[in-house]
Structures are given as structure tokens and as C-alpha cells.
């Protein structure tokens, strides 16, 4: 009887001690530092910050350490911390055209103003286990050119839009709803959908985005461009009345350009899908852009028949903290409900037996 007895408090205390012990592992080995996690598991930190919707590398590293590398558990830890923080206000929208890029590529054009900047990526590596990493030792540092911080880096999409080939970027200065303070309601507008997708589980968005490529709501995508680098965060304090720079953060942005046949009102043109993530997270940003575009199916009269186009289905199931909790709550005791079911199933079976017993002689007589 793992729950029905007294002593639950002591058992729980022991369980807490055990998990803390297992987290530390072999005491003969050095303990991981938060700096090591930040520097050497940086992409994990990026994911935890993105889906935890809190930009703080040290806290994300702490969450990863505490969660023993379980990133969904780490995201949960960061979210639960974030939720109690006081809110000072909203930053002004990021100006990614003034990003200091580490990487910027377009798949739609061979060359673009500002050039193709490959930057750090696994894209061109051969996925061969590098056994030299198993040994300790210093690695050579990579040569870098100084970044051109003065030059704005125009978005490929805006160049296309000037020609009317791509729909204009949506102009909407209305303050967006805040998904972390108000419940999701349907139909959701695009700012709300994008918030949801940005916090959404990378694996879930990846699968949904993939499904659109396999015909479940195909939206004919081209990566107009993907860029990763540092951008300034601006804030207008009430008492100052003008914008000041409060931080610089790293983001990955994906502008997807999608075919569109046009409608009675609109001539054929390309349409947009958008993805944004903290840190370096191209898979997430691309998948998000695919799903964003798919969710515009109804708006663009393309129907909403596929899973990725189904707003309620996508937005209600994208959050891995919600999903992980509810899936795992099945571990909690349910024996009252199970007892109710036992009583009903036994009664139903008894009635079937009774009917069988009553009808059996009749069946024989008829034969």
C-alpha cells in the first residue's frame, strides 16, 4: 500500500533526498559549474530559455543542472520561477534589421545585400563522432572577423515586399495580449499564436512542420532567410518617456516565404511565416515559421483540414510543461475512480450473465 498508510511524509522526504543524491552522481568527479553548462551546453541553455520564456543564461543553466539534463523539467523550473517575477512593462519590439549577425543565410537567393554569412553551424559538418572530444586538452580557437555593427542588414522579405511579390509585413500597433497573464481564447490572433508557438515544444512543432511538408497542409515554403545574432532590447520607462537600451540578447529569426495562388481580391504573391527563438535555435525557428504559416490557412482561404492548420489542436497541445504534467499525472493515485469503475463493470457483467442464463434454455429450445 504505497499511499494508503500513514508515513507518507517520511517516504516523500526520503524520495527528495534520493533524487538530490542521484543528481550529484559520483562524488569522485567534479561538480558541473553553471559557467560550464552555459559555455559547453549552450544550445540546451538556449532551448530552456526559449520554451521557459525567460532570457537568463545563468538561471537556465541552473535549471538544467538541477534537472539532471532533462530539458522539459528544466523548462518547467524556469517557468515556475518566472511566474512570480514582478513585471515592469513591455519592451519595444526588437529591431532584427539591426542585428549584429553571427550567421545569416538565404535559401531563396544566391546572394543578398549583406551577403551569406555561414557562421557557426552543424549544417556542413559530417556527423562522425569526434573521438578526440573524449580526451581532455585545449582546442584551437577559431579566427573571427570583426562584425560590421554599423551596417543595417535589410530583411530579404522586405526587398521582395517592395516589389509587391511578398505580402507586406502585418502593420498592427495594438498591444498584443499576454499569454502568460491571460488565458488562451479562440479564435486567437496572430500575435497570440506566435507567443504560443515561441513557447511551444520544439519536438511538437518539428513534427507538425514536417507534416506540412509531407502534404498535410502543404504551404510551399522557402527559407527567405534565417539569421542569428545579437539585438538590442529597448524599453521606454514611464518616468523618462523615451527609449533606452536595457540589454542585448541573442535570437534566431526565420522568415519563411511561401507560395500563394492568390484569391478573388489578392493577385498571386508570396506570403510569410515567421519564427523567433532565444539564442541559437534554427530547427525551432524554422518549424515555428512553418506552423505559423499553416495556421494562416483559414485567413488565406486554404482551409484548415490538416493538423498543423488546426488552431485549437495546435495551440492547445504545444506547451510541453502542460503536456508533461498531465501525461505524467496518470502516475498519481486514481483508486477512487478505479473503484467506481470496478463497481460499474462488475454490475454490467452480472447483468450480462443474468441475461445469458435466462436466454440459454430458450436458445436450446429453438434449435
Amino acid at each position, binding site marked *: 500500500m504505497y499511499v494508503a498508510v500513514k508515513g*507518507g511524509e517520511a*517516504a516523500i522526504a526520503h524520495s527528495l533526498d534520493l533524487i538530490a543524491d542521484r543528481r550529484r552522481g559520483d562524488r569522485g568527479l567534479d561538480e558541473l559549474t553553471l559557467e560550464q553548462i552555459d559555455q559547453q551546453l549552450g544550445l540546451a541553455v538556449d532551448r530552456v530559455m526559449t520554451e521557459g520564456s525567460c532570457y537568463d543564461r545563468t538561471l537556465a543553466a541552473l535549471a538544467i543542472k538541477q534537472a539532471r539534463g532533462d530539458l522539459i523539467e528544466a523548462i518547467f523550473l524556469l517557468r*515556475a520561477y518566472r511566474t512570480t517575477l514582478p513585471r515592469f512593462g513591455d519592451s519595444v519590439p526588437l529591431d532584427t534589421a539591426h542585428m549584429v549577425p553571427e550567421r545569416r543565410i538565404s535559401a531563396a537567393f544566391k546572394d543578398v545585400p549583406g551577403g551569406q554569412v555561414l557562421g557557426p553551424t552543424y549544417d556542413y559538418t559530417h556527423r562522425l563522432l569526434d573521438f578526440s572530444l573524449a580526451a581532455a586538452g585545449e582546442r584551437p580557437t577559431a579566427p573571427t572577423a570583426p562584425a560590421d555593427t554599423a551596417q543595417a542588414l535589410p530583411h530579404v522579405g522586405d526587398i521582395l515586399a517592395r516589389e509587391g511579390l511578398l505580402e507586406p509585413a502585418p502593420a498592427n500597433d495594438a498591444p498584443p495580449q499576454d499569454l502568460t497573464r491571460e488565458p488562451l481564447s479562440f479564435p486567437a490572433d496572430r500575435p497570440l499564436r506566435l507567443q504560443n508557438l515561441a513557447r511551444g515544444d520544439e519536438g511538437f512543432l518539428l513534427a507538425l512542420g514536417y507534416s506540412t511538408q509531407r502534404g498535410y497542409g502543404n504551404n510551399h515554403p522557402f527559407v527567405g532567410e534565417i539569421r542569428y545574432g545579437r539585438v538590442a532590447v529597448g524599453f521606454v520607462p514611464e518616468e523618462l518617456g523615451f527609449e533606452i537600451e536595457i540589454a542585448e540578447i541573442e535570437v534566431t529569426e526565420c522568415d519563411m516565404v511561401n507560395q500563394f495562388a492568390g484569391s478573388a481580391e489578392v493577385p498571386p504573391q508570396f506570403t510569410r511565416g515567421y519564427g523567433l527563438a532565444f539564442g541559437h535555435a534554427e530547427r525551432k525557428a524554422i518549424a515555428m515559421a512553418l506552423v505559423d504559416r499553416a495556421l494562416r490557412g483559414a485567413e488565406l482561404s486554404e482551409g484548415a483540414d490538416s493538423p498543423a492548420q488546426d488552431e485549437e489542436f495546435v495551440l492547445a497541445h504545444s506547451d510541453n510543461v502542460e503536456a508533461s504534467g498531465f501525461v505524467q499525472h496518470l502516475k498519481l*493515485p486514481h483508486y477512487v475512480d478505479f473503484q467506481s469503475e470496478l463497481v460499474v463493470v462488475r454490475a454490467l457483467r452480472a447483468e450480462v450473465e443474468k441475461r445469458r442464463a435466462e436466454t440459454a434454455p430458450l436458445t436450446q429450445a429453438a434449435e
Partner: protein
Amino acid sequence: MPDTHTQDPAYNYAYLDEQTKRMIRRAILKAVAVPGYQVPFGGREMPLPYGWGTGGIQVTAAIIGQADTLKVIDQGADDTTNAVSIRRFFARVAGVATTTATPEATIIQTRHRVPETPLMDGQILVFQVPIPEPLRMLEPRETETRTLHALQEYGVMQVSLYESIARHGRISKSYNYPVQVNGRYIMSPSPIPKFDNPKLDRSPALQLYGAGREKRIYAVPPYTPVKSLDFDDHPFEIESWSECCALCGSRESFLDEMIVDDQGKRLFVCSDTDYCEGRR
């Protein structure tokens, strides 16, 4: 006597910040004003997982104070893991007195049961709710179910119960049995066994229901009629056992069944541990 505790000063009182509490308090008042209607609220991430009582915890955190005595039960028992965890949480962040005695409690947070001991005027029963929408398994879309509630169009629920009668000769729903509140909204009583449904009807206690993951709060004010759905020729009925509690001998309480040996020998004991201990 209740156990006393000291608040951990590292946290806001009852964990939530004041602005969040106000938002939840406003939602609770709306829920009381429109009994059985699910009020959307800006549910927050809590330090316990979604599906493990975050809705009930947020409701309790928004109402609890220094004058309260808190009881937490899961499956009717004060000592189940989840009940222990939630009680420890409030002892730590609210320094609130805790008890296992139903009559001593001013707030009772529960998962899956209503205590056997009748509740009193002034007590608040806080339910943890996994799926607040009673029509959800019949219609997965929120936009659709919201419209059905608006139009008071509950035929789909009647059809579902009737199909059960047609197939099995009786309504086979055993827990989370739908109710209608004050003749208007159809409501999920949370996954309590239908055995507990009659206790919701005209209860002197205030019932608050919190669904954290689904971000809904709803309520049944004291003395409000709560009717379990049924048909004239198939009236609502509750579970019964031929056995009595092996510990206290009760024939009136909800019994848990335990398998005590590998021959499948059964033992039946009260699910409500406080009620059972009080009778022994």
C-alpha cells in the same frame, strides 16, 4: 488540534504575487456570480506540475490567510503523496495551520472525493479539476462547447447518457458524473465518484473548482441545487457495496478495495481516512 507552521519568508505569502491573487480573486467572484460557468483565468505556472492540482492550488493560494486551517485530501485520504505534498507547500509558503479533521478545517482542498462528514456553512471546498469541460469528451473543440453552453444546448450529453442505457441497460458513467447547477449550466464535478454527487446538492459549504492547465475556475455557491443528470425511467443512483469497512464497519461510506494476497483476496476500507479513524 491543528498543526501550526511558520511561513518561509523567501516567498510571497501563499506563493503568488498580489496582482496574480487579485486576478484569481476576481475570477472566483465571477464564478460565484454565474454558478457552474467556467471562468477563464490567467493561470500561472506553479511549482507543482500541471495535472497535479495546480488549479486547486492557485484557488487555495488566492483565498488562504493566517486565520485559516487547511485540510488537503487525495482519494479521500490525508496521507496520499499528492495530499502530503500540497499540504507541505501551504504550510511552508503560507505558514497556515493544517489539520486532518474535516470539522476543524476552514478550507479543504481535495482531489477526487468529497469528505463523508457533512460540511458546514463557512467552510470552503476547493476541487482540483483536470478537465473542466463536461462536454469535452463528446466535443473536443472549445469554440463548439462554449457555444453549446451559451445556447444551453445539452442534447449531446443526453444522447451520450441514453446511448449508454441502450448499450448496457444503465448509465455506465461512474465518476466525473455530469451535473446541472441551479437548472442552468452543465458542470463537471471533477473526477469524484458519483457516490459523492449528492453531497454537492444544496451543500452549506462554498464549492470552488480550479483547473490550472485548462485555466478555468468555476463555483457552486452554498445551498445551490446541483442535479445529477438522469432520465425518469433511469434515475440517478450511487455505488453500493455488499461489504462493510474492515476497519470501522461503516456501511455508509465509499470503500476502497485492496488486494491483500496473490490469491486475489479482497479487503474493503473507507476511502475517507479521517471519517474512518473517527469511528474506530
